[in-house]
Structure formats: structure tokens, C-alpha cells
């Protein structure tokens, strides 16, 4: 029986699952993920985590708790920095430490630090550190990672070709299926902004993307804008944005706002998110300048679906009136 590694379906799952799953598989290790977020996972997470943490962190605790008796290792990398001179959110950095202190009877964690702040070459030593749990030979590990990384690059290509990343993660096991999918249906787009773990976890945001699709809007997200393009726009900020995720969200929003290719922006934010408190302000200002409607959905474990529905419907109604009557209603009324 081969070794089983658990990857919780929360936080960076939505960004890097493809990369790590393939890497572990290439090393001959089985990967087990927790199920999609559900009520039990949420409740368990809320119970285990400190009250002050944001919703996705709490949910992540629930996912780890689900996996803890079912696997040999749980993979929770310490994401300090994923780009030169930039950081992740402090809670990302402290995530493995929070988990260790909040959950009892855990299997061994693989909590290798990934810190590319000084140099992108540091990824090598992190990869070896992870791989050493399963294989002795560093050449095997390097090859396994390189192969996984190539597949991951293909996946990134896919996400920037108008397919919502989560669909690639869940609906399509193999990337080759995707080429025939119809990508744009309605000819008008709403940008859904926020951290990947808020907008691709359908339980957290109560399936916002389908709601928008039902009202005949295509959805575009930050991950679907090419990275170099979002960096180019983020560089126009008066101060260097030192969060990689912040950079991506602000840059892609600025790009599409200036291009005027979107009808509106829906920002999905977890209550208490520190990055969002900064990002929302920057994006809302820009949207206002360019007369793009903007709305904010703040979520926590108390949020009810009815309230979210009302807000989304009102926003879409406003967009449609705006379009039909060709009047510029106030975008922030």
C-alpha cells in the first residue's frame, strides 16, 4: 500500500492543487483531498479555530480535521513568499503553526517553508525538503517536480483562456477535455474579484458564479488575466504592492477597468480580511473614476444566502437598467 498524503480543500488548494497533486503522484504517493466544503466542515472549523480568524482559515481547520485520521501525512506548506521581494498574507505564513496549535492528534505535517523572497531559486530546496519524505534520490525528486510543473504551466495557460479555474479543478480530470468547452456565452462580463479561496469555494460564496451565469453574465476572475499584464497595471500604484495576491487582484482589476471590457465588479471578501481592506479601497476608487459599477459582498459564518441573493439581484438589475436606459446612474448609490 502506498503512502497517502492529504491536501485539504481550502486556501491554496484552488491555486496549486494541480501542481502538488501531480508532484506527489510522480513520486508514487497517493493524494487524498477532503470533500467540498459543507456544513460539518464549517462547523468543525469554527469550533477549532480562534474566533478572530477569517472564514477561509476557519474552514481550512475543518478540512484538516476531516483528513487527520485518513492519511499518513498532511501537506500544509508555509507560504511565506511566492515571488521575489513580495509576501503572502501573515495568516498564510502562520497557517501550519495555527493548525498545529489548534488541532490535536494530527498525523505528521509536511510544513515546508516556501520562501522566494530573496530568490526564485529557493523553490529547489523547498521541493527537496518535501520530496525527501518519500524518496531518497534528489534526481528523482527534481524530475518529479519538473514534470508536475510543466503540467501546472499548461493548467495556467488554460485558466487564462477564459475558463474558470475551479471548473478545471473539479469538472475536468484531464486538461485535454477542455479545448471543446464553450467559453463565452452571453457577450457581457462581470468581474468577480477576491482571493481564490473565497471565489472558487462555492460553499463560502453560495455559488455566486452560477448565480451570475443564470442572469446571463459571463464571469471573469483575477486568475484569468495574464500575470504579466496584471503586474504591469499593478506597477502603476504609487507604492509597490508587496503582497503577491494583492498584486494579482489589483492589477487584473485595473487592467479590465481601463479596458472597459466589464459591466461591473463584484468583490467577494471574508470578514476581517486584512489584505482586502486595502485592496477594496484601491479598486473601488479606480472603478469610480472609470464609472464601472462596484459592489462588495462580505462573508462570514453567519452570512445567510437570502441576503446575498438580494444584493446580487439588485446589483444585476441596476446593471441592466443602466444598459437598457443608457443612463449613467450613479455607480455608488
Amino acid at each position: 500500500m502506498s503512502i497517502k498524503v492529504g491536501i485539504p480543500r481550502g486556501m491554496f488548494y484552488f491555486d496549486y492543487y494541480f501542481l502538488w497533486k501531480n508532484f506527489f503522484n510522480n513520486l508514487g504517493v497517493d493524494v487524498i483531498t477532503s470533500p467540498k466544503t459543507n456544513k460539518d466542515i464549517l462547523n468543525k472549523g469554527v469550533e477549532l479555530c480562534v474566533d478572530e480568524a477569517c472564514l477561509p482559515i476557519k474552514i481550512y481547520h475543518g478540512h484538516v480535521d476531516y483528513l487527520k485520521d485518513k492519511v499518513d501525512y498532511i501537506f500544509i506548506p508555509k507560504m511565506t513568499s511566492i515571488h521575489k521581494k513580495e509576501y503572502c498574507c501573515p495568516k498564510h505564513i502562520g497557517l501550519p503553526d495555527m493548525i498545529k496549535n489548534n488541532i490535536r492528534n494530527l498525523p505528521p505535517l509536511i510544513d515546508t517553508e516556501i520562501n522566494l523572497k530573496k530568490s526564485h531559486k529557493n523553490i529547489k530546496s523547498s521541493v527537496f525538503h518535501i520530496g525527501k519524505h518519500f524518496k531518497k534520490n534528489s534526481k528523482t525528486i527534481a524530475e518529479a517536480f519538473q514534470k508536475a510543473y510543466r503540467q501546472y504551466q499548461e493548467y495556467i495557460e488554460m485558466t487564462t483562456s477564459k475558463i474558470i479555474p475551479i471548473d478545471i479543478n473539479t469538472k475536468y480530470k484531464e486538461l485535454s477535455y477542455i479545448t471543446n468547452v464553450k467559453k463565452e456565452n452571453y457577450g457581457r462580463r462581470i468581474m468577480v474579484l477576491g482571493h481564490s479561496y473565497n471565489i472558487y469555494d462555492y460553499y463560502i460564496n453560495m455559488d455566486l458564479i452560477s448565480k451570475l451565469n443564470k442572469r446571463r453574465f459571463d464571469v471573469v476572475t483575477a486568475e484569468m488575466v495574464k500575470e504579466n499584464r496584471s503586474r504591469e497595471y499593478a506597477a502603476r500604484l504609487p507604492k509597490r504592492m508587496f503582497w503577491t495576491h494583492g498584486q494579482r487582484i489589483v492589477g487584473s482589476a485595473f487592467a479590465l477597468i481601463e479596458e472597459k471590457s466589464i459591466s461591473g465588479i463584484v468583490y467577494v471578501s471574508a470578514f476581517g480580511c486584512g489584505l482586502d481592506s486595502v485592496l477594496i479601497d484601491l479598486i473601488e476608487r479606480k472603478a469610480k473614476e472609470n464609472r464601472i459599477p462596484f459592489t462588495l459582498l462580505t462573508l462570514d459564518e453567519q452570512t445567510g444566502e437570502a441576503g446575498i441573493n438580494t444584493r446580487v439581484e439588485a446589483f444585476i438589475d441596476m446593471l441592466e437598467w443602466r444598459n437598457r436606459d443608457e443612463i449613467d446612474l450613479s455607480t455608488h448609490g
Partner: protein
Amino acid sequence: MKLTFPHMGNVYIAAKAFFEELGQEVIPPPRNSKKTLEIGTKYAQETICLPLKIMIGNFVESIERGADTILLTGSCGPCRFGYYSVLENNILKDMGYRVRFIVLDPIGEGVDKLKKNVYQLFNAQNIKDVLEAAKIGWQLIKKADYITDLSNRKRAYAINSYEVDLIMDNYFKEVEKTFGAKEMMELMDSTIDKLNRVKIKQNFSPIRIGLIGEIYTVIEPFVNLELERKLGHMGVLVEKSLTPTIWVEHHVKAFPFGSKLERLKHELAKPYLKTAVGGHGLETVGSAIYYAQKGFDGAIQLLPLNCMPEIVAKSILPNVSKDYSFPIMTLIIDEMTGEAGYMTRIEAFMDLIKRKRRTVANG
């Protein structure tokens, strides 16, 4: 150039004298008040953390008094303080104020920019001038901190602790009337003299509490509802894990290695939190252990609502508390914090510590 800066505890005392000595016109903001916070909460975005709200209040009050240049230290992640300057600039622009920001970003962001800013601020022509000026500034910071620390110690031991408050209030009033480093030093010396003459209790061993947590809430008395005074009046000796002196020692004097004390705290925190998480999250965990080992009776963690690094620390502290059987209480502060609820929690915590002492004493 009429210079102003945000409040952070006693820093303004040193900063005012320092920049006056260098020939800059300085307009320190009025001391933090309900009004300051009200201005901040009205104009800053709702979801941002408390320090920014108070800073906006400070800036507005200073600008109304004639300031046109704002001095701010910067940082570059991962705590959101690094982006304060941009947000604040936007907010002040919205309000129709035209001011200049001088942001002292860390050296990694470009040596030339920092150099230019420092030379301009210090009215310096060369590096010798800068060092000369820095020496005076350092003296002032150390002395201002010494007074705060001395007053805390005296308050715990004093027969009449309100005498200390009287001296301190008088000192704060006089600070506004002084000009330049020499006058400030004289005022400080006479205050120290007065504090030393306060009558103290003999054969008294007070409860000792370490204040840990986010630097702004630890240092700024308005934000933590004068926690040092409150504890002092209860006969509690307070030590702060972070003071301007400790900050300068770690970030400026011992650059790039960091001061001995802070490195010790990092070492202590290692078994619980492997790496720094931005802000002072790692130091909070380390300080808790440091105070536990030094035989303190307990620690109080302070943080503004939604402070990211401190939330990480908060989820780790219960384990520290258990392993060292060391009581730790967390107080979270925002613009809605009410004084009565806050007092109840502090009193309950003190009762707990007193009972713990008795149990230990009775075996």
C-alpha cells in the same frame, strides 16, 4: 515645511524636541482624544485596522493647526501598515487637503530615496550631520521611555498612586510649551526628580504583568484605554514588551542583525511559531515565554481588531499558557470598545492571578 507626524505613545515628545533642534517647524497633533478617533472613523474605510483611523484623526487635527508635511515610517509587508501611506494620502485628498508625505521606507526599497528623505528632514549636508543629529534623537527617545517606565514602576509602589498621575499630567502639559532639545531635557530631568520623590510602600511585592501584542496598541495609551495607569492604580507592575527604545535598538541601531533581546525572543518562540509572520506576531509569542520564564505573574495581549499577525499569535498563546502554566489574557480593541466591559475583564484577570498566587503560597 511645517512638519507633523502621527501619535504613538511618548514618541512625539522626543520627535518634537528633536526636529525643533534641527531647525524644522514642528506641529505635533493634539493628544489623542475621542474627537481624533471620531474623525478617523468617519473618513477612513470601515474595514481597516484601528491605527490608521487614529492616524487620520491626528493628521486632520494637525493640518487644521497649519501642518503641511507628514512624516511616516514605512515598511514593505507582510503587515498592512506598509500600505498605510498610500491609503492615507487618498483619504486626505478626498477630504480636500493638499499635503506632502515623507515616508521613510526600509533600506531595501532604495538607498537613495531614504538618504534623500533623511538628509532633507535632518537638515543635513553629509553623513556626519546625520549621525550627529541621530545621537540627540536617540538620547531623547531613551529618556522619554525611561520616564514612562519610571512612572509605571512608581505607580505600582506608591502610597498614593494618583500623585504619579499628577506629575505625569503636568509633564505632558509642559511638553507643549518647551522648545528644542535642551529645554526638553531639562523638563525631563525635573520630572524624573519629582517622580523619585514620590513616597513608596516598603516590603511590598506587586503583581507583575507583561504587556505584549501589537506595537501600536501596546505603546499608545489612548488606544489601550490607559491600561498602564489602570493596572498601576491596582498596584500592578507593568512591563511592556515593545517600546520605542526597543524598536530603535532592534531596527536601527543593530541593523541588519537585530538586537539581542529580540533575537532571544525569536529563539524562545521557535517551538511554537517557526518563522516571523509580519508585524510583531513572532515577538508576541516570544515575549509571553520570556515573561513566563522571568517569573512574571501573567501577560496581557493587546491587538486592534483584525490585526493579521496577532491573530496568528493569539491562536498559539493558549498552548504557551498551558505549557508554562502562565495566565494570558487577550484584549481586542476597536473604535467600539467600551471602558466598563474592559475594566471588568481586567479586574477578573487580576483576581485570577491573586488567587493563583495564594494557592501557590499555601502549597
